[in-house]
């Protein structure tokens, strides 16, 4: 088993290196850090000095090496826009994004899976057709539009829920902040979480349904029926178990999508997370933030892929048999 993890980790390293390279290339070659940092009125001598300070007159690979080295130490340089260290900016925003992403994922899973199972078992019922029609609209609805419509309905129209910001937060530990401790904090989370989770949920529902339909057509389900097993044990025992194996892994991979889609949701709701930070950075070509974000996201994805692979390994006995 350790061979398995080891080989996966080894495959991950080149990916990270490539992404790191791209991130660095961004940092160094796109835009002109010197003129941005020095300002418009700097003299040629000042620019030269700055260039030297930033190490821009060193050969390419030396700069790349320095970049990686400082990055490994958590130093990504300073943001062009707000002159704060990028690392601390990201750290500040991370809890907000993670809380939102996790809540949205849990919602999507908790609603999507049962709906998928139901429409898989009762293919042609009225409720199933309704759910499938709804899911089609869900897929056609861009996330930001859903957010706006929800705001229109629940904030402007009914005035039940807040439409922007995170509400009161409480500090936990050295740098984490959470909104879960107060009712107001949770209220602020509801609309964004639904918005973010909706796309996921429709995807999960359609996936689970498709898998269920496939599984229900297999020979072993036919044999289970021929043995007179109850519908309940066929649907929720045999079929569901076989359905969830591929589904869980795909959901895990999708989690990365949620983290990325959060940038749209955060923009609509002005949620102070990493996504909003990225959007603000792209708008002004704040390269340090962009490249750090890229690296961080790559790391997150690699980690998620690894966890998913491990999950697959744990759940499917056939994989464990192969040595």
């Amino acid at each position, binding site marked *: 088993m350790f061979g398995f993890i080891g080989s996966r980790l080894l495959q991950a390293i080149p990916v990270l290196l490539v992404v790191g390279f791209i991130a660095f290339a961004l940092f160094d070659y796109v835009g002109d850090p010197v003129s941005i940092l020095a300002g418009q009125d700097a003299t040629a001598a000042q620019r030269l000095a700055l260039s030297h300070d930033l190490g821009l007159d060193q050969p390419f690979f030396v700069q790349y090496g320095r970049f990686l080295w400082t990055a490994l130490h958590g130093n990504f340089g300073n943001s062009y826009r707000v002159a704060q260290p990028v690392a601390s900016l990201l750290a500040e925003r991370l809890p907000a994004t993670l809380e939102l992403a996790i809540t949205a994922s849990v919602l999507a899973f908790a609603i999507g899976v049962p709906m998928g199972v139901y429409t898989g078992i009762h293919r042609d019922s009225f409720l199933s057709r309704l759910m499938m029609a709804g899911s089609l609209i869900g897929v056609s609805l861009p996330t930001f539009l859903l957010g706006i419509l929800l705001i229109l309905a629940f904030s402007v129209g009914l005035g039940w829920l807040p439409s922007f910001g995170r509400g009161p937060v409480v500090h936990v530990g050295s740098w984490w902040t959470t909104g879960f401790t107060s009712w107001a904090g949770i209220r602020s989370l509801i609309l964004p979480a639904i918005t973010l989770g909706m796309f996921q949920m429709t995807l999960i529902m359609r996936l689970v349904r498709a898998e269920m339909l496939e599984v229900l057509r297999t020979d072993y389900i036919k044999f289970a029926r021929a043995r007179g097993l109850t519908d309940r044990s066929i649907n929720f025992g045999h079929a569901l178990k076989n359905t969830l194996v591929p589904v869980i892994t795909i959901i895990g991979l999708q989690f*990365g999508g949620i983290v990325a889609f959060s940038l749209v949701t955060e923009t609509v709701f002005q949620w102070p997370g990493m996504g909003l930070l990225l959007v603000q950075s792209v708008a002004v070509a704040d390269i340090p933030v962009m490249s750090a974000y890229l690296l961080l996201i790559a790391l997150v994805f690699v980690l998620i892929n690894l966890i998913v692979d491990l999950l697959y390994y744990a759940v499917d006995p056939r994989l464990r048999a192969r040595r």
Partner: protein
Amino acid sequence: MLTRAWNSDLAYNFRTSPVAVASAALALILLIAATFAPWLAPHNPMDVASLSLMDSFKPPLGMADADWSNPLGTDNQGRDVLSAIMYGMRISLLVGFLSVLFAIVVGIAIGLLAGYAGGITDTMLMRVADVQLTFPSILTALLVDGVISAALPHTMREALQIYVIIFAIGISLWPNFARTVRGSTLVERNKDYVMAARVIGVPSWRIMLSHVLPNVIGPVMVIGTLGLGLAIIAEATLSFLGVGLPPTQPSLGTLIRFGDDFLFSGEWWVTVFPGLTLILMVLAINLLGDWLRDALNPRLR
């Protein structure tokens, strides 16, 4: 030949599926409205001279103070929402089509190459595709957009923005096409007629283009249709985020962004109507794509 097409399985399937016909009709209506907007639209929202602040914030029909000259109301500068939507659809559809076209061309090229050449070329190309696929396309599009915009000198930025967007979205979508084409190529490559052609000495590129390509068109069309929906949503999202098209060529996404500011002051129509149009457009495309996929799926026949 036309009767043969009419009686073919695909056409029969289409004719008898109310969903397919309805969504195709809807898509057609929207397409016509968009293409002929300059002639069909009641007003020209780009023409600054025709605007009057007196007309600003007129509500849509059904509410007080509305009238037929602006059936969907006007925005803060007096622009007619209906006309803005029609012009906006043009841009949205144009960018969507071109991005998907770009993705298809690149995807087919890389897919054919990977599938036919095999070996290390195949592995490397597919690795790149796989890595890119683990990132959501919107993120890729956003970063590509940001990077290129930053790289361009200020003066050219606005003029080239639309091409940058098309490129960015296209780049974010190519792996889907490449993988499918590669899969089909691998299947076809091992078939006897390809081997026969090679034995005769037909050059590889010709085999790829004239033999493999036609067999691959089906799945490409399905992914293309669904990809069109994705591309349109991607463009709308980018425009909404403010990193998309410049305000002088507003797409539906840009219109929604404009209107977002007025939600709380009660002028909801400026954002909602473009939004509904976007949903309808993508819905029609997705329905068609779904139908196409089911119709072409050999297993369901």
